[in-house]
């Protein structure tokens, strides 16, 4: 397992005198379940914005499957298979989920420039949209305007739109953020069922979700990588406990669920 699909080399990003990203070298393997954690202000968002092409790094390089993508605009990175979801839903409120997915699938298949055939008239696009709607449990909402969907369903569509692009690397930015408890399980199941060959980089505050999902973790503090390792190593790392876990996990009460979910993940 040394098949690295996403790699950063000594990434630095400065905002004036502030160094928001300090010499970050990150490697994500094909099919990885990699979590990026860190306290507020650790520079997670800045790092994601550099990976996706929203921000240009001050120094360093980013490689996707061996190709240097540091200078590519956001949409070109997507075409190469680096896809993200957003912490705050970024959807098309007046389009239906079916139209949204059809647009994403058409975009991937290079059919989006077609200007004479109706959206989804292509049988391949149609089949894929049906499959995605089923996979993300959106069948019953396929033809309603996205703005009218319950929040949890919109959250699912947010992820479905990314999966529709068949990414090599999927950046999930707090996928469960704001989802009410009743709809949470749908999101967790969906994330657990993501295709095995897709490398997933998860940015999340929810420690239960992180420890149940990740097989590898990187801890970011003050813009720099503090440490990296398996969830067991991270959970046991006194440095991490000091700067990060100590804040949110108080003593033994929160350690237990993390440990049990770890055991569960190991079996699965």
């Amino acid at each position, binding site marked *: 397992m040394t098949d690295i699909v996403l790699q950063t080399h000594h990434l630095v990003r400065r905002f004036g005198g502030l160094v928001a990203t300090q010499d970050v070298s990150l490697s994500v393997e094909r099919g990885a379940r990699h979590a990026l954690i860190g306290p507020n202000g650790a520079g997670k968002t800045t790092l994601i914005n550099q990976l*996706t092409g929203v921000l240009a790094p001050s120094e360093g390089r980013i490689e996707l499957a061996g190709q240097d993508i540091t200078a590519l*605009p*956001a*949409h*070109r990175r*997507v*075409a190469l298979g680096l*896809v*993200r979801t*957003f912490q705050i839903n*970024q*959807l*098309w*409120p*007046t*389009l239906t989920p*079916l*139209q*949204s997915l*059809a*647009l*994403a699938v*058409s*975009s*991937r298949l290079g*059919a*989006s*420039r*077609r*200007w*004479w*055939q*109706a*959206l*989804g*008239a292509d*049988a391949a*696009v*149609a*089949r894929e*949209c*049906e499959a995605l*709607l*089923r996979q993300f449990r959106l*069948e*019953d*909402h*396929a*033809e309603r*305007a996205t703005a009218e969907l319950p929040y949890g369903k919109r959250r699912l569509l947010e992820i479905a*739109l*990314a999966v*529709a*692009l068949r990414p090599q690397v999927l950046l999930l930015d707090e996928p469960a953020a704001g989802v009410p408890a009743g709809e949470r399980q749908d999101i967790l199941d969906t994330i657990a069922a993501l295709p095995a060959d897709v490398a997933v980089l998860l940015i999340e505050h929810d420690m239960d979700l992180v420890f149940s999902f990740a097989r590898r973790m990187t801890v970011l503090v003050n813009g720099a990588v503090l440490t990296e390792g398996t969830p067991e190593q991270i959970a046991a790392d006194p440095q991490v406990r000091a700067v990060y876990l100590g804040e949110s996990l108080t003593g033994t009460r929160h350690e237990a669920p993390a440990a049990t979910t770890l055991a569960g993940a190991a079996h699965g």
Partner: protein
Amino acid sequence: MSARPATRSAAPMDATTLAAHSARVMRWKPWELVVWALVWAAPFAAPQHAALINEIAILALFAVSLDLILGYAGIVSLGHAAFFGVGAYAAALLAKHLNPDPLLGLAFGAAVGAALGALTSPMIVRGSDLTRLMVTMGVALVLLELANKFDSLTGGADGLQGVVMGPVLGLFEFDLAARTASVYSLAVLFLAFVVLRRLVHTPFGMSLKALRDNRLRVAAIGLSVQGRLAVVYTLAAGLAGAAGALLAQTTGFASLDVLEFHRSADVMLALVIGGAGWLWGGLIGAIAFKLMHDLISAVTPQYWTFWIGLILVLLMLVGRERLFSPRRWFKRGGGA
């Protein structure tokens, strides 16, 4: 045609749903056919109003072109007359100096409009709506002053005189009563409408609505926001250029008036009255705007702007959906 698939509801999905959905939106609804039949009947039933019908058709084409960028792609513009104006001058100059064929001039006017659109599109990609309002308005003002300055070419404030058009298709001479003109303009409008009605339901058309709704996500599915905006802006500019060409050809005249600010404002008014974001908005708006203008001016010549202002305020405060838009009378969404 009679078997309409009942796929609106939450019926279980099957592999044909999306195909049926796309076939359904593409199909012309009966009311659309009726309206077009009435529109087509107008120049034949009321030839004495041919000049008005011609003006309406031209404004409608202009408004539909604005709808493409404003209603679909969400680009606000107060300078759409820039493209209308250069199209008008291009067609008039071509006819005067090189070739009097109307269709050639129409194509030339559209091409010049599109070229200006492509040239100026980078300016509308960035910034806020206010930026776009000012930039589009500024471009139109610059062109207006250029047309004024280069009077050896444009005729300046006197206008470009002596534009004599050849017959349409070599068969139909333009007449003083504007009968040929009205049918010619209507035919161009109809053709553009048929093509655009299809276009807005294609992946390309849907990506325009997506741009309006959320540009961040458009980039996130791998589409170039700048590229799409440039294409739609160029397309709309070409259509506006064609509308301008029609005006110059059917009136045999082009003057600074084609670039004036009031043209940009009028076309936006017409579109707002008809409703932005659906193609019928431009058409219905143009008809309503011109008819109101004619009727109100006939009653109170001085106070036309008072009434149009009042209507505008009502429209904005009460909401066009509740006042006019037929699609909201029946259901949400859908429409052309």
